[in-house]
């Protein structure tokens, strides 16, 4: 069975690019572009890796992640955060609320692929352990 | 009407103004009495002269007009608290 990735992102061209990159590597890619219903989508899909954009309409990626980490089921879910606002405090905030990896747009395709592969293979995502402390 | 919080002694000018207002309020009463005065001689037997009665009424009338003009001139010179006329929207 192939591994599942859920991509939460609102920009159609970026969705298409990420989908192309990951599916070529053998992943099953689900996408969702509404921030408000993102948590439901995660609950429904139960992905192996979550790729989460920060600047979503309706709801920020930070809020979504905070909600997910509060659910025991997803406390250990590997999450790759993507943001177009690459400031220091964004990175710190992402780490604090339990993002597994943080990447700034524009990203290189191989980097993303690399990150997703790594997150899926790690037994316990390093960031999740930090978040649990 | 006037509240108990008003001061007992008023400045001379304010005092004069108050009495002026009193006069303006009493004037119509005075006028009414003067206009009724012919009752004393004209309503009895035989009545009175129309011409003389008319002249009397005319005299009272003009007196009232003059007094009213004098009073309202002084009263309207400076009326505190009167709102300025609103701008007329034509």
């Amino acid at each position: 069975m192939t591994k599942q990735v859920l991509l939460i992102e609102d920009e159609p061209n970026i969705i298409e690019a990420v989908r192309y990159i990951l599916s070529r590597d053998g992943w099953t890619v689900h996408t969702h572009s509404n921030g408000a219903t993102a948590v439901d989508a995660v609950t429904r899909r139960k992905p192996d890796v979550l790729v989460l954009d920060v600047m979503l309409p309706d709801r920020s990626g930070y809020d979504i992640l905070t909600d997910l980490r509060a659910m025991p089921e997803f406390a250990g879910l590997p999450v790759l955060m993507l943001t177009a606002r690459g400031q220091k405090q964004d990175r710190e905030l992402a780490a604090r609320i339990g993002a597994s990896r943080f990447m700034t747009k524009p990203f290189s395709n191989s980097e993303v692929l690399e990150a997703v592969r790594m997150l899926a293979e790690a037994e316990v995502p390093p960031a999740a352990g930090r978040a649990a402390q | 009407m006037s509240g108990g919080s008003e001061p007992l002694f008023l400045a001379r000018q304010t005092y004069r103004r108050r009495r002026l207002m009193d006069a303006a309020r009493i004037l119509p009463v005075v006028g009414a009495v003067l206009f009724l005065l012919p009752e004393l001689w004209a309503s009895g037997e035989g009545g009175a002269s129309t011409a003389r009665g008319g002249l009397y009424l005319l005299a009272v009338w003009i007196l009232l007009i003059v007094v009213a003009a004098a009073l309202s001139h002084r009263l309207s010179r400076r009326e505190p608290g009167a709102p300025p006329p609103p701008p007329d929207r034509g």
Partner: protein
Amino acid sequence: MLSFNVLVAVCLAYVAALFVVAWWAERRAQAGHLGWLRSPWVYTLSLSIYCTAWTFYGAVGNAARSGLEFVTIYLGPTLVMIGWWALLRKLVRIGRTQRITSVADLISSRYGKSTFLGGLVTVLALVGTTPYIALQLQSVTLSFAVFAPGAGAEGPPDPARLQATALWVAAGLAVFTVVFGTRNLDVNERHHGVVSAIAVEAVVKLFALLAVGVFVVWGLGGGPRAMFDAIEASPIATWEMHGGRWVGLTFLSAAAFVCLPRMFHVLVVENSDERHLATAAWAFPLYLCAMSLFVVPIAVIGLSMLPEGSNPDLFVLTVPLAAGQDGLAMLSFLGGFSSATSMVIVAAIAVSTMVSNHIVMPIWLRVMQGGATVSGDVRDVVLLSRRLSIAGVLCLGYVYYRLSGGGTALAAIGLIAFAGVAQALPALLGGVFWRGATRVGAGLGVSLGFAVWMWTLFLPSFGEGAVIPAAVFENGPFGIGWLRPRALFGIEGMDPMLHAVLWSMILNALGFVLGSLASFPGPMERLQGAEFVNIFRYSSGARGWVPAMVETEDLLMMAQRILGPAEAQRLFQAQARAQGKVGYLPDPTREFLERLERELSGSVGAATAHAMLAQIGGGAAVSVEDLMRVADETAQIMEYSSQLEAKSAELGRTARKLRQANEQLTALSIQKDAFLSQISHELRTPMTSIRAFSEILRDDADLPEAERRRFLNVIHDESQRLTRLLDDLLDLSVLENGQVTLNRQVTTLEAVIDRALDATQARRPRLSVRRDPVRERIAVDTDPDRLAQVFINLISNAEKYCTAADPVLTIAVRREAQGAVVDFIDNGAGIPEAQQTVIFEKFSRLSDTRAAGGAGLGLAICREIMGRLGGAIAYLPGQGGAAFRVTLGDVLAQAAE
């Protein structure tokens, strides 16, 4: 002898002259040249509508019959005027602060904005005014008859011809009144045309009467001394004063002077400045004195010169005619004619306002239920109902004239009407001077007085057996003796007039006082009562609205329908500014609601305005408990001083301003951070796509051709998006730093709008545009490219965001006092109130419509451009859909050269 046709021609010329005067005065007022239109003299002269044709002709007739008694009709008003400080000043102040439109409105407003009382007083006024108008028609037709061919002073005039004359006069007056009396809805916007015409008429009738008098005394009587002797030798040489009638008539005329609808209208409603009263206080008595100066001499000469049995009511006309002075007779005829016309015009305006505000509008509101305030144009309804009421009132007058046959029954009707309208006096005086007066008392008093007046005076005036059977006069109704119309409570032998006035006023006042003492006033009544009685202590306006129960936008919608869009928007904007806010939507504070209610009541009357606001507020804008609390609070505050209130208002204003300043500062610093990260986001997003796809294209050599092409397209589109964004940012920064050079030139709005529509043609497949090119032909001195850029932005926004199935954009252009406004109104869902203030900020896109393709800089750029052009752009709430108003400021003043 003057021919009848010449007379008609002169009359027509006179009426035409009045039209010209009225039209000219309106023009001046519109142009803002009020000047003498607002002088105390015009005000004083306008009061002369008290002297109707009845007094013009009838005073001499009365003097010929009962000597000096005629003068009582003038003495009452004289006393009221010289006592202005006590009563009239108060009425005028109340009328101004409460925006009173009529006697009925004053009483209704004072007693808790009662619809019932307003209606009752209106009926009273209508019943009292109708015969009075009939009387004027009769006077005019009778005076016509004097000149009619073949008919001497005493010859029987041809009835058909007289009726035709009356009909034409009534119709002509109706036209004049409708044209000049209903131009504006708000009675506080004064009828300059009508008032000026009346002032002219006042001069004409005074001049006419004085001319006849001078001719009689010096031309016929041989000087004052000889005149004195002539009076002493005449049939009316002895003055047998009837004390009761003397007092009664003086009182009655004084009461009527205040209560007559037309008098209240000129005294209070048309008053533009309180200080005018100070002048009128002595000048109007002088006018009355002059009007009565020659009455006795004319009567005496008439009695001696004219044959036995001549109608003394027409001496003013027939004496100059008999002396061969045709010109003078003509002048005198015009005097009588002008007395009649001015009275009818103002009476019709006053009564029609009452009927429309207190009978038609309440019924209409009830019929329309809650929909009244939100659908349909209330303005049109009010104006139409007022116009129809004018026609109706005049029509009633004519019908009454026809029914009464124009006979002698009419001669007494003047006093009968006085007695009728005087029934409003106790409620009016009590309401203004006594806080304890209640609605129950007022209703009881007015009803009782009205009933007694009807029974003892009005109905009997038609003659025994006409309405009330003769047997009832003899034995009373159902044989109840003490209810006989002319001998109430068994008191016989009194003068019928005096009898009626005495009983109706006594029972009226008694009912009013007892009713007031026994009942308990509602909270609204207590508030209004305190407000009216203590008007000079606190001119702060009525209370009673609990804020935050109403949506300001709904209020604006309603206000626009009543006051007209421009006026309502001005009011809301001013209020918002007073609260320290920008835009069109002030907080619905109590002060604001009260102010609004007063503004509305200037147009539709207090009770109706209150009901309309209540409808918006959900039917129960104010609960009784709320009101009681407010009432107690108010009573306490009132016992302090109004200063406290002013201070707290000042404090509130300052606090609001501080709060807003603080909000702005916080918002500004947040904005700065947000701006940077927004720019970062907006730039990085397209770059992400570009990078990702170009890497794909680089790394995957075996991509199918179709795929390649699609990816290349994405890269192309995204780089264009990037360019557009950079362009916008650059544009904005240039504008914000003031480095932009404007290419000003004179063009028309039509040309700019044409350009904007052409440029967006391809980009708006769905949107249809509605416009009125004729109104767009306004020359402006502006930068056409920049202005077109603003318009293009607004049009594209409408295409992008309008949610309607058939999106329609209305572009409405209007010329303003200094500049022009261009409104862009679509039929979509509009923009929620909370968002309205942020849409002009940078990067504020309302939703996730990336499809819209902009970075959210469009409106920010528009705002900057308009600022540079010396205009403004704002969101205009309450238009149904999304609406933007582009204001071109002083630009136009330069172009007007």
